[in-house]
């Protein structure tokens, strides 16, 4: 039950990110001026018939956030009671701390009229919370506990490139958050060209931020193709690596398309919000792949005490490995 509940918590976090995207995309962030109350009402007793205009987006975001906060609190408690691995229990408390901090940041950004640094931090921490809930769901899953396929050796190259890819996706999301909250989403109004050129022919700070996000998309594309290509070439029989790689290859063109449509539609709120949540999905998919590539580093006893790694056994030799061995 715990793995299922952890997966539900992770999924609810994705819903929360979409709801947050809708708040920013519809410009509703200040439609409820007070916090934690809503127009003086206790948040949970705010009448439904008053959920009008921008209030609908902001208030439902707060309600979903409260629900996710409660779910993460329950998850942390459950882990504390039932999880034998100390680091996983700590992960639950870290997620709880992160979601509380996230709530406070959300409140502060409303009370201080959406200052860019706070709003960007709020958006960035949302991704961290998502990563934490997904990580908890992953490491409590039966496949992770089983160790997937026993006796496989580490692929150091995959481990490195997966980390770089995940980190780059996160940086790209930070750039996206900065672009959204500084109002630079349409600073370059055309796609795929930029003011009709490959490189913008004029610059200001917003154009630079927008341009950086597009360059970031290019970097992420190359890295995802490299990572997924590596997995599909060398580890196609390892489902725990193959499946997230295929998912990345599905999400990548979807995300690029959503990004293009966000610009071409003049930041249509639903398209824009799907772009945000798909970006978060790309991040956690890459994170799952990275974690699984590093699975052997998490070998440990039930009490949470790390034990030496099992002796390495060579994976069935692939053509690439055979070539390496001959060299």
């Amino acid at each position, binding site marked *: 039950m715990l793995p299922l509940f952890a997966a539900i918590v992770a999924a609810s976090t994705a819903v929360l990110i979409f709801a947050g995207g809708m708040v920013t995309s*519809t*410009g*509703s*962030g*200040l*439609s*409820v*001026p*007070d*916090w934690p109350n809503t*127009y*003086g009402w206790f948040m949970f007793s705010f009448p439904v018939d*008053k959920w*009008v*205009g*921008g*209030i*609908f987006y902001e208030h439902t975001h707060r309600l979903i956030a409260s629900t996710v906060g409660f779910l993460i609190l329950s998850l942390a408690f459950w882990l504390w009671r039932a999880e034998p691995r100390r680091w996983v229990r700590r992960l639950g408390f870290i997620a709880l701390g992160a979601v509380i901090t996230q709530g*406070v940041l959300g*409140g*502060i950004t409303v*009370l*201080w*009229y959406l*200052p860019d640094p706070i709003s960007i931090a709020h958006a960035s921490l949302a991704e961290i919370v998502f990563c934490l809930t997904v990580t908890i769901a992953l490491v409590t899953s039966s496949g992770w506990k089983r160790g997937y396929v026993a006796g496989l050796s580490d692929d150091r190259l995959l481990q490195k490139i997966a980390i770089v890819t995940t980190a780059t996706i996160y940086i790209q999301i930070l750039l996206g958050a900065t672009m959204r909250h500084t109002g630079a989403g349409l600073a370059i109004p055309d796609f795929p060209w930029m003011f009709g050129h490959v490189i913008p022919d004029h610059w200001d700070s917003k154009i630079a931020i927008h341009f950086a996000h597009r360059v970031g998309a290019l970097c992420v594309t190359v890295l995802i193709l490299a990572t997924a290509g590596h997995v599909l070439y060398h580890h196609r029989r390892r489902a725990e690596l193959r499946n997230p790689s295929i998912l990345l290859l599905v999400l990548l063109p979807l995300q690029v398309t959503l990004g293009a449509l966000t610009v071409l539609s003049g930041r249509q709120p639903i398209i824009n919000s799907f772009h945000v949540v798909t970006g978060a999905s790309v991040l956690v998919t890459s994170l799952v792949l990275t974690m699984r590539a590093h699975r052997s580093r998490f070998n440990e006893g039930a009490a949470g005490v790390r034990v030496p790694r099992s002796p390495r056994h060579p994976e069935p030799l692939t053509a690439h490995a055979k070539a390496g061995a001959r060299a």
Partner: protein
Amino acid sequence: MSSRLSRPRTFLWAGVLVAGVTAAACGGGTTSQQEVPKAVSNPVDPATAGNVTGHVTLDGTPPPNQPIKTASDPNCKAAINTQTFVVGDGGSLANVFVYVKDGLGNRVFPVPTQSVVLGQKDCQYTPHVLGIQVGQTLDMISSDPTLHNVHGGDRDTANREFNFGQGIPGVKNSHVFSTKEVIFPFSCDVHKWMKAYLGIVDNPFYAVTGADGAFSLKGLPPGTYTIEAVHEKAGRQTQTVTIGQKETKDISFAFKV
């Protein structure tokens, strides 16, 4: 043992931290009283005062004001339009803020004790454009049976940004502006179409054009003045005018689209 003893202290520090964050979070509150310039008696001699009158027009055909989709709030009036260009006969342009930008020297004018009212009716700000003096009170009143937030200014305005929630018809919030600023914007984040524009000046010589595009700045002391006309979309224009004792000068502004 020592860890048990330290636990209350930990809670104490946690409490201090939470209180600090709460206090900080509440720091952006809605108190609106700001420093008011010291007023002196009106330095204009009525016996010699003159006037500047005029007319504002728009050349060209502006984009038509669009119907607003108010479906997101059933309490709002169904048929309302944007008010970006309100053009009357002969191209007369309404909602232009006209004021004396320069030429009054170091005269300091008394601040009117009467409030200026920015209303909210049928999910629109009324009036759409208005003026006020630095130090004068602006009352924001909603008469709609729905929720509004009065969001004044933004990160770029010289006057401090504020955001009031108005949940009950008849509720009033007040604000006093500390710095002259033309134009200070208002919006409602509940109803994104709601916009209003306020001209904040340090003298009583301002006007907002009506449907006939006319304006009148009365009671000016003799002198040379820079008159500025500001429209939310058409931009700004200035003119220099000199008036003598008890003289009335007529000027006109012509914006283009």
